[in-house]
């Protein structure tokens, strides 16, 4: 009896193992190799040099070709990518990075410490994240073929996160390329270690990336932007389709497998198409009105507080999102919900008060005499224009005089660098992965936040390495933000993407699209 019971248990176990194996094999079988994935996006990248520009299209494309020492996991925390591991000296000033061995560049050369030193040195001179990090670096050198060492001037909390950010990131190029192109000149030879390599770039027609057969994936499962990466498709063809209605039509007809950056008014139509899956991309941007704090009317903090008190954010967000509640979120944290490490839940903040009386009182205290406030926006990004227009109406009801100046994006970007040309401008804030990366809290970015208290906490955040103390500082900074009002934080706006149902394995949770680990069902 006992023996037969053992046999039964063994049989059940064997069956369970066989089923589990079959399931695993089934999943593996489902992940098919091959095919061309055609992706329609808004436009042409200004460069395929990850160090050179902060343009989001460049970020998306270059992250398929290049990799950095670190990447971000699903919770936006740094995890190793080309680095094997790191150690920090007892004094907290020496970071030693062990590199993974046997990593090949697309030109067949092995990646070594010389490439890392040359690349990150270049990145440290051009990228805003690189500059912030290298301002704290006393020496960066190769120890041996697979080890690099970073000696800091002072303790720093931003070493790993700076090496992990995906935008304007510390991509590793071969030393010859990193040294050939000075930091202010964009790279035009595209050789990385990523799962795809650049095959052809025909401006305004397509960018072809093909699978890099010698790619050496990490052994961990995919995790956020990092972990294991497999190039299942033979080729990714990035097609710039500037007209959004055309992108929508092409994903409906199957001329594109994936379309990014779609207008929200296409949502209902796409949802009815059984061959297409709609994807709400979050986070996308939180909408922001940035004040010129160097010159002019908005240097007056009371006036900025009056703006904050006057606006009623929900109707603005609802309108910008085309009436779809799926596409906006009311949240006052400076880090979006998805950046779990830095998302705050503070109560009592003067956000979305829509208190007209308070606004009027603040205007009086500010000594405001109906002088026109130059509010600069653009119609190139419809959501910017929409929220500027709706804000103007609400603000004028509260006693402001708003001179809405609608210009094209290139003009806005130029003018916002000149403190004489505007009082407020619109833009969107994407994800920042560390409190020190929030550019609108820095004195160097347009709007010029030079407030000493804000700067002091920023400096403390850069030095403090204890996570709990950093979070406390960040909460303090958030409260300070709503008191000093360097910019106005509106709500979170989400984006719309669409994929054919044949596209499998796409990670919908990352802010920017990635097509490693994605396959096509034939």
């Amino acid at each position, binding site marked *: 009896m006992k023996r037969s019971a053992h046999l039964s248990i063994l049989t059940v176990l064997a069956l369970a193992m066989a089923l589990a194996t079959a399931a695993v094999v089934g999943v593996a079988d489902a992940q098919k190799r091959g095919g061309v994935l055609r992706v329609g996006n808004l*436009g*042409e990248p*200004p*460069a395929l040099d990850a160090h*050179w*520009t*902060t*343009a*989001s299209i*460049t970020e998306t494309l270059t992250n398929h070709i290049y990799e950095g020492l670190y990447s971000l996991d699903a919770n936006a925390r740094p995890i190793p990518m080309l680095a094997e591991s790191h150690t920090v000296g007892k004094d907290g000033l020496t970071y030693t990075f062990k590199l993974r061995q046997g990593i090949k560049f697309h030109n067949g050369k092995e990646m070594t410490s010389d490439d890392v030193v040359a690349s990150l040195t270049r990145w440290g001179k*051009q990228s*805003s994240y690189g500059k912030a990090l290298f301002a704290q670096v006393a020496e960066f050198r190769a120890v041996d073929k697979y080890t690099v060492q970073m000696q800091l001037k002072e303790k720093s909390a931003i070493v790993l996160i700076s090496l992990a950010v995906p*935008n*304007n990131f510390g991509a590793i190029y071969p030393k010859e390329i990193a040294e050939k192109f*000075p930091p*202010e*000149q*964009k790279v*035009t030879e595209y050789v990385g270690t990523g799962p795809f390599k650049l095959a052809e770039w*025909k*401006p*305004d*027609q397509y960018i072809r990336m093909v699978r890099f057969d010698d790619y050496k994936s990490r052994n961990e499962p995919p995790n956020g932007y990092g972990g294991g990466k497999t190039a299942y498709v033979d080729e990714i063809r990035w*097609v710039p*389709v*500037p*007209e959004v*209605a*055309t992108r929508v*039509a*092409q994903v*409906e*007809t199957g*001329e594109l497998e994936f379309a990014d950056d779609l207008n929200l008014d296409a949502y209902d139509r796409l949802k009815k198409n059984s061959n297409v899956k709609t994807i709400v991309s979050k986070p996308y941007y939180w909408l922001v009105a940035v004040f010129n704090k160097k010159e002019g009317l908005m240097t007056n903090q009371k006036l900025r507080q009056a703006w904050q008190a006057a606006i009623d954010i929900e109707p603005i967000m609802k309108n910008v999102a085309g009436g779809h509640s799926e596409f906006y979120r009311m949240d006052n944290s400076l880090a979006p919900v998805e950046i779990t490490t830095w998302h705050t839940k503070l109560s009592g903040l003067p956000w979305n008060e829509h208190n007209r009386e308070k606004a009027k009182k603040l205007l009086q205290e500010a000594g405001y005499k109906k002088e026109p406030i130059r509010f600069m926006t653009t119609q*190139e990004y419809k959501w910017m224009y929409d929220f500027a227009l709706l804000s103007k109406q609400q603000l004028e009801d509260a006693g402001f005089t708003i001179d809405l100046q609608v*210009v*094209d*994006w*290139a*003009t806005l*970007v*130029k*003018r916002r*660098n000149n403190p004489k040309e505007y009082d407020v401008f619109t*833009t969107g804030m994407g994800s920042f992965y560390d409190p020190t990366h929030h*550019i609108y809290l820095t004195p*160097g*970015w*347009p709007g010029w936040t030079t407030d000493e208290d804000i700067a002091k906490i920023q400096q403390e955040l850069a030095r403090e390495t204890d996570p709990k103390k950093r979070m406390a500082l960040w909460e303090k900074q958030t409260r300070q933000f709503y008191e000093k009002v360097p910019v106005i934080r509106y709500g979170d706006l989400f984006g719309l993407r669409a994929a054919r149902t044949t596209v499998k394995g796409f990670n919908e949770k990352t802010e920017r699209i990635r097509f490693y680990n994605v396959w096509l069902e034939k």
Partner: protein
Amino acid sequence: MAVVVTVVFLLIHLIPGDPVGVMLGPDATPAQIEATRRSLGLDRPIHEQLFKFYARVLQADLGQSYFLDRPVVTALAERAEPTLVLTFASLLVAVVIGVPAGIVAASRPGSLADRALMLGALLGVCVPGFWLSLNFIYLFAVRLGWLPAAGYASVFVDPVAAARFMVLPALSLGFNQSALIARISRSFMLEVLSQDYIRTARAKGLSQPIVLWIHGFRNALVPVVTVIGVTMAVLIGGAVVTEIVFNIPGLGRLIISAILRRDYPVVQGVVLVTAAAYVLINLMVDVVNAFIDPRIRYE
């Protein structure tokens, strides 16, 4: 052309906006922007940049695109084929629709056919190309699935695919352009058909088609050829809306992208080519007109 080029150079440089700000992205700092401006020579005074531009043009060098990482001449050569194919295809549609419509309308002025055709021509002038193009895409690509929604294939690489891609843009653009050709054809045919020699031809017992096509149409052809020439020149400068909606990588799309990105050398290059095309096409129209009407002589 020198005047055109100078005016365009000054206009594009005087309007606000900066290529470097666009290239470096929204989070770039003013310091980064200034460094890159210096490396591109954009920090130099306008007159210095203008003289440099003149010197290069005289050597047939239109400079280097800031965005496209290639000489402007190469960029223009790459974009010429799609624009030329679209121009000729839509012109064919416009002439095939416009000329017969104008003649038929003129042959029976005031009739139902005349009114219907002129209403169609009025619609062709009034309906925005953008709206028509998007409706064509929705109907023929999305709903019926007969044709691709957008894209381009070279006629030299895959003629069948090229033809399929070109049908909808040529039809929508050609329909718009045919309206003007139809109205001009009708107007001049009416004038010609009221002439004494036409009455004489009819009195001699010649058939209506011979009167219309042999005696009438040839004499109305000069203004029709002129309007076709003007249409062609406009299209070579880039059918901007059609190229953008149908995602055709031609000169129209190039100049719009270049203006938005403030890619000064490319804007100047496209304008220079368009100005040259205008001059050349006007010359061709004069030659053709002299051939059609032997009374025309250019001193």
